[in-house]
């Protein structure tokens, strides 16, 4: 069947037959890099447009509808505008760190693309510690955010960065514990093993109530980790103007913005992989006929469908809950989510040992 993996195979064999091995390998790397850059740019455009449209419809208005057909080119026009803006550096800022911060954030977001399985057999690097890689690399972004806030020579930025750091490191714990509960059920950290284990049903259905608790905690934690509302204290517009990127303008601001949206995509992709089966179609046990019908839908559509559904849920949160205060936010994590998820890990362990899951 026509799929992403067959396209890469065709390209690979063509490269191998036309060029000598070294050049073929180099060309492959260049193509992969260009592909990821394109994916990033497209993700940025699509997600910003989606955010604006979803917000608009939830507030019973139309949203951007002037630039291009039905407003589809709005974000492209915005990017062009940001490209034409001057990138100011505030007086007294730590220039080196100020210029470095967008790169750090960008690199951490880009590195997270490696272990994500976009479709069947379509993955850059299926390393055996895939899940651990994700949780370790995603914490590099905090350094970039603290760097940006500290170096800006602006009180809003400093406050925003401090809040953001406290928030991200706190919620990393419960996100990690809910990831671990799936690792216990699978018995492997490899992304392809995790997806393969969901052949007869997704973990959210197979894992009974503990898996659902873990999924809910994961969703709350990643919402906080990506600084989204209702946990958007780091850039609470009405208090801190824009938080850690107050002083950033022009293309550097655009990079922060893009990395933020890319991070939302990545955490949702990880959530979809762990709990909703990644590219695995919706299967019910051994119902062969039903499973075969589901297999006709390409795996990439399954993956992007699940991921964008989770992104939609996170956008939905923004218009449902009011913003928390910092003490409420830390209370929620340390007094509720962390003990619950620790207890949940033990429940999942008992379930895995007794083989109560399907």
């Amino acid at each position, binding site marked *: 069947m026509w799929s992403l993996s067959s396209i890469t195979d065709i390209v690979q064999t063509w490269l191998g037959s036309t060029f000598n091995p070294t050049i073929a390998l180099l060309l492959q790397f260049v193509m992969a890099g260009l592909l990821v850059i394109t994916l990033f740019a497209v993700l940025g455009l699509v997600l910003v447009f989606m955010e604006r449209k979803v917000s608009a419809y939830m507030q019973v208005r139309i949203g951007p509808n002037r630039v291009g057909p039905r407003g589809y080119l709005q974000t492209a026009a915005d990017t062009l505008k940001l490209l034409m803006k001057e990138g100011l550096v505030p007086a007294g800022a730590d220039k080196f760190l100020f210029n470095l911060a967008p790169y750090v954030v960008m*690199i951490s977001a880009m590195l997270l693309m490696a272990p994500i399985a976009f479709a069947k057999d379509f993955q850059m690097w299926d390393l055996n510690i895939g899940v651990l890689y994700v949780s370790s690399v995603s914490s590099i972004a905090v350094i970039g955010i603290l760097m940006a806030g500290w170096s800006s020579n602006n009180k809003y930025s400093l406050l925003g960065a401090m809040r953001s750091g406290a928030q991200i490191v706190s919620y990393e714990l419960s996100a990690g514990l809910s990831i671990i509960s799936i690792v216990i059920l699978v018995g492997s950290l490899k992304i392809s093993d995790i997806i393969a284990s969901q052949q007869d049903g997704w973990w959210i259905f197979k894992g009974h109530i503990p898996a659902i608790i873990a999924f809910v905690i994961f969703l709350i934690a990643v919402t906080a980790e990506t600084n989204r509302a209702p946990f958007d204290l780091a850039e609470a517009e009405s208090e801190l103007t824009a938080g850690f990127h107050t002083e950033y303008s022009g293309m550097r601001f655009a990079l922060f913005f893009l990395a933020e949206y890319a991070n939302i995509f990545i955490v949702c992709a990880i959530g979809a992989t762990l709990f909703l089966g990644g590219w695995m179609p919706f299967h019910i046990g051994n119902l062969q006929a039903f499973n075969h019908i589901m297999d006709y839908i390409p795996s990439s559509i399954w993956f992007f469908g699940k991921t964008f559904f989770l992104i939609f849920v996170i956008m939905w949160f923004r218009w449902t809950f009011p913003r928390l205060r910092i003490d409420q936010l830390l209370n929620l994590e*340390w007094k509720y989510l962390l003990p619950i998820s620790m207890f949940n890990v033990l429940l999942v362990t008992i379930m895995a040992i007794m083989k109560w899951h399907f």
Partner: protein
Amino acid sequence: MGAASMIVLIISAIVFAAGGIITSKILVMGIKNPVKSQPYECGVETIGNTWVQFNVGYYLFALIFLIFDVEIVFLYPWAVVVKSIGWTALLEIMIFLFILFLGFLYAHKKGALKWV
């Protein structure tokens, strides 16, 4: 693609970010003005130094986070093998988690988790 993909991704991130910033530098015709480079504080001139002392709470939370993060790092290898080892592994991790939880309760009792 293996481990080389990390290098490819780092390079493409740098190319992407640098490409954007350099392109905008070429396109922009900036007019120099000392007011432009002042820190933004909603129109009011900033008073005093920016790098001031901040709430000690952030530091306490970071310390407690460190303990629990190390705990989670220990949990990862345990989670991979717990299914094959069985009840012994569960008992051992319960002792481990119990000791940590006592520390957590102590921090809670001391008021380290309270935002002041």
